[in-house]
């Protein structure tokens, strides 16, 4: 009896989490003018409309520039920080992690307006560079937390052995340390990529002019229900869910 109840509950929650996303993907492949039933026919109609729209391609290009920049920078600096923190005393490291994770807890709205006011004050013109800077604030905590969790269990005897066998510190890092932690680092990088691709609010306040995919969607949600949003949504879902899934698979995450 209890088994059935828990199973039913889990099923309902999974449906609740997945259904909206599944519907977006489903309707992106129809030519319905409104997103509702009945479904007319399978069609790439909305993808063709997007393809013909130069603004979409510009937003797509901007999204890739921003996300790849954010991924590269936050992975490098986050990994470096995590490796240092992993050798700190546990209490000190935990305090530092708590502080570094604070931006993730706050509403993105507050981070967005704080950055807008700050960039304005110090005279930095808004551009894709300021968007990248803004994204770093929310992506680097994830990289640090993920890599730190791996590094605290790292067996430094392996590195010491490499040194003992004649490897320079540099060589020991690239031949021993990095191969051991690389799957975790790649996993963290893909999570950073997913967050950056998905971010709308911080981008909105720090971009100045132009669009990324989420702000492009925003412009469309604002006007009226344009089903081409389903197609952009499917592209975003494919990219973010895809990179998350690959990240999980690579790092064998189990919660």
């Amino acid at each position: 009896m209890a088994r059935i109840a828990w199973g039913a509950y889990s099923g309902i929650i999974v449906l609740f989490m997945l259904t909206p996303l599944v519907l977006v993907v489903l309707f992106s492949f129809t030519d319905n003018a409104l997103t509702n039933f009945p479904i007319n026919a399978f069609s790439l109609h909305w993808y063709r409309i997007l393809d013909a729209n130069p603004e979409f391609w510009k937003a797509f290009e901007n999204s890739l520039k921003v996300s790849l920049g954010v991924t590269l920078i936050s992975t490098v600096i986050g990994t470096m920080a995590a490796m240092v923190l992993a050798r700190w005393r546990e209490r000190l490291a935990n305090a530092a992690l708590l502080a570094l994770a604070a931006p993730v807890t706050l509403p993105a709205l507050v981070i967005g307006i704080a950055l807008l006011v700050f960039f304005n004050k110090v005279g930095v013109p808004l551009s894709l560079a300021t968007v990248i800077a803004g994204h770093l604030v929310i992506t680097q905590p994830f990289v640090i937390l993920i890599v730190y969790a791996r590094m605290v269990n790292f067996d430094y005897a392996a590195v010491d052995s490499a040194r003992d066998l004649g490897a320079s510190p540099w060589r020991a890092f690239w031949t021993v340390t990095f191969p051991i932690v690389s799957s975790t680092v790649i996993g963290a990088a893909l999570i950073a990529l997913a967050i950056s691709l998905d971010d709308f609010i911080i981008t909105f306040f720090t971009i100045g002019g132009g669009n990324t995919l989420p702000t492009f969607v925003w412009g469309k949600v604002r006007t009226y229900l344009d089903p081409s949003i389903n197609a952009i949504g499917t592209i975003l879902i494919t990219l973010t869910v895809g990179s998350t899934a690959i990240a999980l698979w690579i790092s064998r995450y189990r919660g």
Partner: protein
Amino acid sequence: MIGPSGAVFLLLFVAPFAFLFVVSFWRKKMFVLEPDFTLVNYSETLADYGWPLAFTLMIAFAIAVLTTVLAFLFAYAIRFHAGRYANALLFVTLITLFGGYLVKIYAWKTILGTEGILNSALLTLGIVDQPLTVFIYNPGAVVVTLTHFLLPLAVLPVFASLRGVREAGLEAARDLGAGATRVFRDIVVPQCLPGIMAAFTFSFLIAAGDYVTPRYVGGPYTSMIGDFIEGQFSLRFDWPAGAAMSFTILGAGLAIIALVRWALGALRPR
């Protein structure tokens, strides 16, 4: 080595945040910011936006409680009842974590709308003969949409803390005479209070600061403070007022979180 990360944290988070706090005591004169030390922005926030503030705290509280309870039960099911499906359930949770913030809001708008999926399904099935308007443009739609967005985020910290709860402890409690309810209340919940609080804190603050969801599915009577804060920056350019509103909602939010933490402290063992 920790330098670059520290620089990002200090220059792009601490400094802007501190400066925004300073600006909340400034004045706006003729579209120019003027340094000052005045509490006028705060008193005006309370006077002009008292109702949106109160409403935001109430709806965010409701969303956070609902999300945390649903997340706890789901994480509990994964931890103790899912068996070989545990990894699959966890996987679904993780991939929906980053499934598109705006896309999710848009999806709910298309599901709940008057010409939306729910109504067209009900019409097709002949359950109703007129589209229902009760699904969207009300606080309920905001609760559903934000709960959907926040749920994966809340499941993860709760699950992480539930993983630390050992079966032997639960059996020991039963052995000492505790029934199912007492085991739950005395052993399970107190051990994952940190995870529960993390889930509640995330959900509450993010819900309280959201402005996109209420604007698109909330309708005219769902006036949340985030909507007004965003307006101060994109329409009225009154940054000091927007800053004061931001810190007011953050302060009130943190106070409520502290209160909840204190109340849950009653579950600590004697």
